[in-house]
């Protein structure tokens, strides 16, 4: 995507017209009266701000990946199915619309892929709805690439059924998106583990929603980082502890500049019977200039008494004392800022377990700094 050209186009055309013609048909970004879309307001995008430093990122992902993962497979064994579609997360008209639009569901049995890493590039598919099933105890790593400029602006729906004792690691990447809404739903059965890492960069208008339904003795780890330099970027998560003894840990870090807006809304829900739940949620934003904004709404809704839940949220700029320490060792402010940005999201990179995934993430992130 040539973003500069893209912005120029937007500037030249009448904004109203643009909104009407180009956005999701059922546009959640415009309806801030729905609590969950409170901050996802398109009219807050200021297209007059000079987006000088923005250029399309060519990650050359596939080549990169194939270098690293010689044995990786992309999805070829695809079965198309009409499936009974059930929602375990709260319904919303927006989510349902993807089904109305395309009642065909792409169904993947991840157990068929016995390689170390499996790559799914969403741009390869026109379908909107996907179901993934995984039941092996052995850990598998999955990469989901979401980067195409899709003419199809309908919301997408990705549902994961993680069976008992299954163990999966997912790296989700969203970049160069001009406008995207994707729902991720994870239904975790007893004693399953999910480790999800989200890397997002260079998106104009992005909203990812993550729904987790946890049975007992599950563990869920979500780590996200969003480099937001344009438009409005939104992340929403809803983690539902339905049964006892599960733990969830979510860390979300955003770096914002060039007048962009980054939003994080997250909720930990603990059912009455979900005793001994351990829930943790942290969202941090780093504002790099005076015109950027960040909104955070971390939420706890708890009905069980024997639980340990906490959340935290911070918004600030780069610590000036840290900068001073770097300077005092002869490191220029520019370089120090880069290093401190990397340090800010290091926690997210550290959460990736697969060495190869870690490597590639590191590389990708470095190209964003």
């Amino acid at each position, binding site marked *: 995507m040539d973003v500069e050209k893209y912005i120029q186009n937007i500037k030249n055309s009448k904004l109203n017209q643009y909104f009407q013609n180009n956005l999701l048909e059922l546009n959640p970004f415009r309806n801030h009266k729905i609590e969950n879309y409170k901050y996802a307001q398109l009219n807050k995008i200021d297209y007059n701000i000079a987006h000088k430093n923005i250029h399309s990122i060519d990650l050359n992902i596939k080549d990169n990946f194939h270098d690293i993962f010689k044995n990786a497979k992309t999805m070829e064994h695809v079965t198309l199915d009409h499936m009974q579609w059930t929602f375990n997360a709260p319904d919303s008209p927006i989510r349902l619309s993807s089904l109305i639009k395309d009642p065909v569901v792409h169904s993947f049995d991840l157990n068929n892929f016995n390689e170390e890493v499996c790559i799914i590039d969403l741009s390869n598919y026109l379908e909107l709805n996907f179901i993934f099933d995984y039941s092996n105890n052995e850990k598998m790593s999955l990469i989901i690439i979401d980067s195409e400029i899709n003419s199809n602006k309908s919301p997408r729906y990705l549902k994961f059924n993680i069976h008992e004792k299954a163990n999966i690691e997912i790296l989700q990447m969203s970049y160069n998106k001009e406008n995207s809404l994707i729902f991720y739903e994870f239904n975790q059965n007893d004693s399953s583990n999910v480790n999800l890492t989200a890397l997002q960069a260079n998106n104009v208008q992005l909203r990812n929603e993550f729904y987790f339904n946890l049975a007992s003795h599950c563990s869920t780890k979500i780590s996200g980082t969003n480099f937001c330099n344009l438009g409005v970027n939104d992340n929403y998560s809803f983690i539902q502890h339905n049964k006892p003894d599960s733990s969830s840990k979510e860390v979300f870090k955003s770096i914002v500049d060039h007048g962009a807006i980054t939003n994080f809304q997250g909720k930990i829900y603990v059912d009455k019977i979900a005793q001994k739940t351990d829930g943790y949620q942290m969202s941090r934003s780093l504002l790099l200039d005076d015109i950027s904004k960040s909104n955070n709404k971390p939420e706890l809704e708890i009905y069980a008494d024997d639980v340990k839940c906490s959340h935290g949220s911070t918004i600030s700029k780069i610590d*000036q*004392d*840290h900068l*001073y*320490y*770097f*300077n*005092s*060792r*002869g*490191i*220029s*402010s520019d*370089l120090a800022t880069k*290093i*401190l940005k*990397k*340090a*800010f*999201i*290091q*926690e997210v990179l550290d959460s990736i377990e697969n060495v190869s995934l870690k490597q590639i993430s590191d590389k990708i992130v470095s190209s964003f700094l």
Partner: protein
Amino acid sequence: MLNINNLKVSIDEKEILKGLSLKINKGEVHALMGPNGSGKSTLSYVLSGKEKYQVNGGSVDFKDNNLLDMDVDERANNGLFLAFQYPMEIPGVQTSFFLRTAMNAKRKFNNKPELDALEFAKELKKKSQELNINPDMLKRDLNVNYSGGEKKKQEILQLSMLDPDLAILDETDSGLDIDALRIVSEGVNKARNSENSFLVITHYQRLLNYIKPDFVHIIADGRIVKSGDYSLALELEEQGYEKMAQA
């Protein structure tokens, strides 16, 4: 090397340094002693260029350049090093990576090529062994969860790696036990040579048993009130600050 002339500094409109003068020549070690609130740390911050310190008068020449005109990193690359009293904890930045970045910044400043990884690793291993630093420590985040002693050792390791012309040690002895104090001092002594200079800021004479200064200055209320040789430190230990400052 360093020539401070009648320096006046305030912070938040409160004057801390009230006309301080100090001259340090190449190869000399100076000790600056004084009670709490006398302006010791202010001097070290001002020399390193920390923001918020307002210079109201006087001058500081460093290697014949006006130090006060330079940015913080410019001063560092010109050979000024401050070993902090409270080294900053920076999560997410590996200690060895930080060191390497700092060394390369200086090399770049002096138009030298970057240090290759092997050379750096060799140097780092040698220097950290001298200071009895556990190699694991260098893999951890910068100063995060370091003990007080480890932080100070890490500062001295940076000092020996960066090889400055003038090193300011700001209460490096605070929070150190006897063994750590000895190791840290040995590290400093090893870094000493006829080309570089040190300014050792401390409360106690104890540190000066290990790092022998050529000159000792007593600071009180933002001015140097007395200067002498090493014997002044002993005298001070006996008589206390109050008496000495009056004299």
